[in-house]
């Protein structure tokens, strides 16, 4: 079995008496989409925050590409190649689409201290940003202000900004949130293609998308992983059916 790209080992996080993550162990391997599902309040956002560096776990470790990154912040993990998308779009609304994508390139190339050159001039930065936009289908909206984009286009831009990092792994927090059937299908196709570039840890409520995309699924309930397995295994898991899926399957 190949070494995991990203792994959590026994991570635990409490907020007062509430244990939001309770001895969670999971990993993400090359070429796979590993979905994390669970009801609201299961601790998915806390898990993502610990994987991406927004929160430090009380116990346990996070490893990325063989390095212990438990005490590293979000920016340091991003520089190692861990790209994330946000549940609620975190985009610079006053900026254009190309500016948002270029920001990712500035971060990826470590060039934020350049003062004399133009950020949007023709060159490697812009090319990389435009390629990422083309990849998600936003190439015709480069000059549009993000505030004027539709919700679906903002979700696409989230992915494009993550792509500019040329990441080694993606952590995606509900990329289908708020999308209609067509948008969701489009996003599913996109994620399906992206898995070949970097594995995806996918937190998602849209079960159709999860079942269509995931190689493995982990089910999180009350901060604990109650099951990990393939789509068929999870569909058939009695505890998961009782706790989360109900009669949906």
């Amino acid at each position, binding site marked *: 079995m190949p070494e995991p790209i990203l792994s959590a080992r026994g991570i635990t996080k409490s907020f007062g008496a509430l244990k939001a993550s309770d001895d969670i162990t999971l990993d993400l391997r090359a070429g796979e989409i590993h979905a994390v599902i669970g009801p609201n309040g299961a601790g998915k956002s806390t898990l993502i925050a610990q994987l*991406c560096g*927004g929160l430090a776990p009380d116990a346990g470790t996070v490893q990325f590409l063989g390095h212990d990154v438990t005490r590293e*912040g*979000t*920016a*340091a993990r*991003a*520089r190692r190649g861990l*790209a*994330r998308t*946000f549940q609620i779009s*975190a*985009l*610079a*609304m*006053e*900026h*254009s689409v*190309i*500016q*948002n994508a*270029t*920001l*990712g390139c*500035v*971060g*990826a190339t*470590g*060039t*934020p*201290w*350049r*003062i*004399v*050159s*133009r*950020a*949007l001039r023709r060159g490697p*930065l812009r090319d990389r940003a435009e390629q990422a936009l083309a990849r998600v289908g936003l190439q015709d909206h*480069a*000059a549009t*202000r993000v505030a004027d984009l539709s919700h679906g286009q903002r979700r696409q831009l989230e992915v494009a*900004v993550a792509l*500019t*990092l040329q990441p080694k792994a993606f952590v995606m927090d509900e990329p289908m949130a708020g999308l209609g059937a067509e948008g969701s299908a489009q996003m599913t196709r996109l994620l399906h293609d992206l898995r070949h570039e970097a594995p995806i840890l996918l937190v998602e409520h849209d079960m159709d998308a999860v079942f269509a995309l995931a190689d493995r699924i982990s089910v999180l309930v009350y901060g604990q992983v109650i099951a990990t397995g393939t789509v068929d295994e999870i569909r058939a898991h009695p505890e998961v059916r009782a706790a989360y899926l109900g009669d949906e399957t």
Partner: protein
Amino acid sequence: MSRETILNALLVAGLVALPLGAHLAGEPFTVTLATRAVILALAAVGLNIALGLGGLVSLGHAAFFGVGGYAMGILASHAQSYVPLMEAPFLIEGTKSMPVIWLVAVVASALAALLIGMLSLRTSGVYFIMITLAFGQMLYYFAIGWAPYGGEDGLPIYVRNGFPGLNTLVPIQFYALCLVVLLLALALHAVIARSPFGLALDAARQVPERVRAVGLNPTRLKLAAFTLSGAITGLSGALFADLNRFVSPTMLSWQMSGEIMVLVILGGTGRLFGPVVGAAVFVALDHHLGGLTEFWQVWLGVILLAVVLFARGGLIGLIAGERRTDA
């Protein structure tokens, strides 16, 4: 060409033509008024980098204005008394040379901004406003008690400092010098705003979590902007002290910080020429309404209220419309 670019070009033309006209008409007082507006605009250009690009609502920028002013006052007072600033371990004498004074003012105010920024940027929102205000007041009260340099009474300088090739005592020549410095600062702002640094800084103002997620440190970006901002405001302080040939703790007061912020908001926060318009309107109101009533700032308050309520882009926004996005 956008409306804002045309407006900016007209403003530059006005900055050149109006004082020149006043000089030719034999009205040196008008030239001095314009010099005051240009120097205050420079202070506001400094704040506009922190506030407009970085979103840092600093109520302590008078600290840097005052540090620049005192850098000029201290160096010039030692030069006029022929008493060295320091004899051991090495000799430091005063100077009447503007370029040297500017360099000292810029370095001293940048250092002050770096230190204040490092501590203040651990906070945000209203706490950032309060901590910058507190640092400003600390320096204000320090200056009041600093007896060797005039304490509460301030420090007069008898002759304006010199600049190679110019007679700075001639109002139009000093004005031209200040205008060149202002235009250079505006050029720097324009270059920064379009650079990768400006892009990252503006994004750090809007979505710091995104900036972190692409591998950048928003606090460091803001600290760099705050330091640069303090350096420019410090330079304006040195010029302001030279204009008045006097430096006093008033330059460090929180009212001064508020005044610099009013200039930025009035003209248009984050707009390149916002500080210029803000300063011009402020000085014009001070001069014209100040002659009619000592309560002229009530009317300034009314204008500011109207700008904040109805013209979020300031006076520039009112004329030139919303800021265009780069693409």
